[in-house]
């Protein structure tokens, strides 16, 4: 039995931990691939003063002035109506510290740079485009270089030589940015070479995919760690039990002359072999957990950050080694107390310890003091911390403090219960629960943490969900959305729509890419139409915001952008546009959930004036009710559009909700795992305690309480402490939710969601907690109810 619980503990600890690690590793590999193309914001770079492309001569001039720069040209092209990012790189000067891009492009330099060149693409993108390696699709009226699959590349990007990119994008001798290598050779002052035409962008944290997604991985890791520690609780109690049971044997061995060192060595070897076995099984389980969760993790990362993670799990050997190591280390850590006891064990049985109250009071005081200290740290962090890490630290401190103070809370609650008890059995019920506290506290802490995290995350997800749905209604106000294969087709479609009576309005859409504060932003064009005026989810706005938007000298900014750049209504910004910088006054802030990029919204007509080459192939349609489906069918038939190009509002919403739900399904799954592990911890603790509890229960039985009654009391006791713990977990969980919404989300995603409490959810969790406690207590209690009198009598017999 202990062997089973020991293995279960180790396996679940290792499995959850290494599962989470596998996910993180997978994502990191993907970021490395991304870095291979992005050149990355991890690298310092020079960009045009107004973020527009600049002449390549500046690159040559800078090289000749000692600058270790490498040029890049970036743009979007349409391949079969699908928009793809095209990145032109210069492999010879590309700094080696820029991901693995140099190796990627230099693999076959000759083929890459000399006509017709090569177009490197991630295998996934190749599949998405439905093209084979070696194919030469068309874009901008040019036959593109043959495609070559390159596993290291991030999906959604085509990489070509810069010279070829200049031809495809029709920007001869133009460069979008210069990456700066790390070479320390002397260089001339930037201004003396480039005047004020270039601007230095330091490696930026904000746009860095890895940093951006750190919060997500921190989140996963936190869950993994939590589960791991909960698993160790199980191991700890199993080992403690095994040790207690073997105590007489160990004593005998010691008495026979086996040295403590020898005994310990044997115990450690046994433990390590068990940990090895459990670690291996745990790793396999972890692999399956990771494989099962990966699609959701990938969906989350794509939805939240636009990070592309491949759906197939690939693991490095180091992962396996680390998993085994953590299993062994965990087992040893969990066994440390027992082993230490074994070393110091006197050969003869020890005398009675101190009175349990004194012992317990001392322990409670210590823990409470520690908890208060941790709470003080948390308060300090709330006051002075301003980073995501600080946010998580607040959460961690909050949970740790709550876990530490839990025994005191329980103690107080039980003491109150004891004081109110009138009947002797009631008195005993409370008093005995108090005495049991020290044995159960670890498991109860695990339960507390699991519940609090569940409440916290559940509340956050629920709050998000509610806000998101309302927001979605505002954002998806048109009835039909369509994106044409080209601007020409878009014009044809508009002409065609003009003659359709059921179309009440055609709402042109357009977006352009620009930059603000060195980070890329989207500029969205909103037509001046009631559909937008009535529905657009403005969080804050100046008076007459929509009227003021019309002339084109004002804009709305997304919440993320406003938080990141500390922009508010009334502030002014300057957005680089092809014709020069575009000064805009902010007249509104709107919610833009799930968009990794900053966004501003301007009047549509103004956008087309300022960004003449912005693609105008998207539009929304207002359509008379129940005419939507026939219209879509007609559109698809007339213009050979497929489902990707045209969709009705309901489909879009369903799709968005589906993505949204997947985004949090990982969290939900880990939540469930954690709760499950906490339940197992409680079970093993109770099993461990069950044996040592017989001497306490036997006198009651002798005095005249039936076994059935005793069993019922035991069950009730477990449920009572679980209930108190759960009740304590509720406010803690709400606090956690508040932390997530008000601190962590704001730092991680850039939006703050309204805080809602969902009583039904809380009640549900209470029930789950009680159910977990019931399940955990059922086995030991059933054993007690069916226990043979002989087992109880044995307690009274002289020799124990």
């Amino acid at each position: 039995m202990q062997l089973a619980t020991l293995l279960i503990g180790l396996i679940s600890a290792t499995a959850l931990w290494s599962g989470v690690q596998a996910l993180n590793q997978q994502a990191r590999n993907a970021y490395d691939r991304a870095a291979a193309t992005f050149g990355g914001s991890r690298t310092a770079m020079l960009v045009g003063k107004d973020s527009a492309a600049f002449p390549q001569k500046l690159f040559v001039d800078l090289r000749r002035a000692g600058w270790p720069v490498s040029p890049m040209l970036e743009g979007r092209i349409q391949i079969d109506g699908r928009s793809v990012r095209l990145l032109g790189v210069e492999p010879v000067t590309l700094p080696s510290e820029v991901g693995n891009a140099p190796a990627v492009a230099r693999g076959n330099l000759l083929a890459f740079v000399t006509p017709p060149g090569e177009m490197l693409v991630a295998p996934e993108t190749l599949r998405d485009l439905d093209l084979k390696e070696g194919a030469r699709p068309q874009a901008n009226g040019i036959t593109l270089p043959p495609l070559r699959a390159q596993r290291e590349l991030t999906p959604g990007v085509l990489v070509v030589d810069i010279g070829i990119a200049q031809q495809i994008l029709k920007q001869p001798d133009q460069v979008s940015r210069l990456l700066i290598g790390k070479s320390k050779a002397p260089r001339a002052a930037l201004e003396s070479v480039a005047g004020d035409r270039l601007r230095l962008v330091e490696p930026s944290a904000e746009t860095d995919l890895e940093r951006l997604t750190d919060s997500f991985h921190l989140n996963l890791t936190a869950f993994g760690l939590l589960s791991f520690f909960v698993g160790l609780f199980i191991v700890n109690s199993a080992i403690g039990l095994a040790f207690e049971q073997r105590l007489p044997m160990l004593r005998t061995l010691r008495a026979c002359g086996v040295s403590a060192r020898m005994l310990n060595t044997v115990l450690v070897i046994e433990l390590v072999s068990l940990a090895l076995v459990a670690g291996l099984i745990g790793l396999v389980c972890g692999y399956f957990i990771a494989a099962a969760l990966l699609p959701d993790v990938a969906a989350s990362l794509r939805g939240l950050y636009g990070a592309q993670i491949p759906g197939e799990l690939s693991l490095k050997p180091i992962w396996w080694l680390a998993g085994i190591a953590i299993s062994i280390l965990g087992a040893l850590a969990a066994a440390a107390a027992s082993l230490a006891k074994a070393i110091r064990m006197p050969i003869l049985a020890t005398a009675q310890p101190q009175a349990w109250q004194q012992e317990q009071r001392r322990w409670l005081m210590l823990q409470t003091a520690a908890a208060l200290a941790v709470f003080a740290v948390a308060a300090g962090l709330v006051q002075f911390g301003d980073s995501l890490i600080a946010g998580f630290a607040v959460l961690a401190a909050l949970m740790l403090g709550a876990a530490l103070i839990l025994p005191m809370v329980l103690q107080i609650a039980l003491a109150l219960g004891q004081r109110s008890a009138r009947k002797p059995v009631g008195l005993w019920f409370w008093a005995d629960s108090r005495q049991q506290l020290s044995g159960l506290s670890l498991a109860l802490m695990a339960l507390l943490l699991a519940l609090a995290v569940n409440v916290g995350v559940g509340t956050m997800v629920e709050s998000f969900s509610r806000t998101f749905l309302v927001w979605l209604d505002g954002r998806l106000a048109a009835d039909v959305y369509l994106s044409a294969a080209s601007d020409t087709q878009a014009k044809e479609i508009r002409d065609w729509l003009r003659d359709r009576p059921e179309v009440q309005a055609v709402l042109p859409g357009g977006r352009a890419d620009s930059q603000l504060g060195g980070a890329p932003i989207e500029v969205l064009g909103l037509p001046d139409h009631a559909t937008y005026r009535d529905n657009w989810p403005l969080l804050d706005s100046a008076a007459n915001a929509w009227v003021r938007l019309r002339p084109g000298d004002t804009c709305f900014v997304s919440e993320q952008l406003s938080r990141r750049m500390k922009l508010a209504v009334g502030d002014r910004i300057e957005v680089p546009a092809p014709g020069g910088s575009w000064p805009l006054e902010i007249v509104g802030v709107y919610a833009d959930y799930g968009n990794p990029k900053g966004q501003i919204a301007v009047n549509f007509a103004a956008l087309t004036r300022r960004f003449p080459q912005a693609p105008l192939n998207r539009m929304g349609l207002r359509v008379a009710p129940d005419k939507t489906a026939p219209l879509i069918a007609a559109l698809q038939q007339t213009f050979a559009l497929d489902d990707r190009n045209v969709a009705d509002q309901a489909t879009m919403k369903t799709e968005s909700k589906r993505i949204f739900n997947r985004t949090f399904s990982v969290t939900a799954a880990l939540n469930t795992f954690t709760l499950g592990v906490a339940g197992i911890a409680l079970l093993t603790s109770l099993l461990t305690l069950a044996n040592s509890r017989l001497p306490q229960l036997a006198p009651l039985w002798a005095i005249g309480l039936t076994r059935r009654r005793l069993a019922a009391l035991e069950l009730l006791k477990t449920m009572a402490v679980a209930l108190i713990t759960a009740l304590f977990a509720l406010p803690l969980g709400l606090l956690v939710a508040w932390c997530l919404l008000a601190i962590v989300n704001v730092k991680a995603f850039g939006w703050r969601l309204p805080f809602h409490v969902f009583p039904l959810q809380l009640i549900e969790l209470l029930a789950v907690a009680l159910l977990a406690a019931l399940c955990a207590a059922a086995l030991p209690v059933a054993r007690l109810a069916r226990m043979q009198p002989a087992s109880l009598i044995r307690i009274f017999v002289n020799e124990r």
Partner: protein
Amino acid sequence: MNARLTRRAFAGGAMALALGGKTFAQGFAGLGETADGFAAVTPGRTFAFPADHGPHPEFRIEWWYVTANLSDAGGAMYGAQWTLFRQAMKAGPQGEGWASQQVWMGHAAVTSATVHRVGETLARGGIGQANVEAAPFHAWIDAWEMRGLDGFDAQTVAPLELKAAAADFSYALRLEAGRPLMLQGDHGYSRKSDRGQASYYYSQPFFTASGRLVIDGKPIEVTGHAWMDREWSSQPLASDQTGWDWFSLHLPGDEKLMLYRLRQKDGRENLFGNWITPDGRSAEIAASGNSITPLATTEIDDRKLPTSWRVSLPARGLAIETTPLNPKSWMGTGFPYWEGPIRFAGSHAGIGYLEMIGY
């Protein structure tokens, strides 16, 4: 002298390797590669200056190579190297702009008795990051350059300004020459093997140099001698040739000696060289009866390099032993080799440069 070409071909291979990718290296700098599509090196070429100071893009590989033996006011000795390599990734019509098939590589180094500093940089042709213009003479890659100064004479390739800078060293030298450049080999045709490998090769061994080195931020005023090599070819090395040991020596009385030993896979070796008199005439050194022999080795990065040598040319009455200024003159570039200043004594005493490839 054909070995001279060979050594640079190896350095050219270095360039390929520095660019990463074996395929690439094999693709355009394979040492025994045939020269399909590239211009061939044939005897009887008429050299024309300044035009031939400029690039010959129809040939696969080419370089501008300067080594200088320098000393400061206190007599401490130094060396400086400035090299620009050009390689064509493929034959055929020259591409314009980014489509150019030319790739350039610069190596620069300074050497003292205690330090040896190296810099390396790469550039695509066609856009102006690196190039050589014959008139007015100007060779450059990034911020490194060799430029003809006022009064530049195409026949003496002087006066020149030579500049390079890397993270931990830089130099600026002025090179002057009172005697014209000289054609190596047979009127500039330098045969490398019996199988047709050869190069065009001329040198200016008569430079005097003056200027300033900066090592770790400390400037040092220096003067001394310098030697320029110009060489281009399409198929510089036979496939069974593994490496070489090359000397350029400034002899007393303004005589110069270029000498190298070409090593083959089968352990055999061939000696080539030219003895240059102050009036600019050069005579080839016969392979038989002459020898260069390693005396002592230095271990660098698990490689054993013979850094001290005995050179014996009995017909010329020359018997000398050479010692390096800094035995660790290791060029830790993409393709590593040893190149550094040496001293020699014996029947003749003086200074020079040693290069060792293929260890």
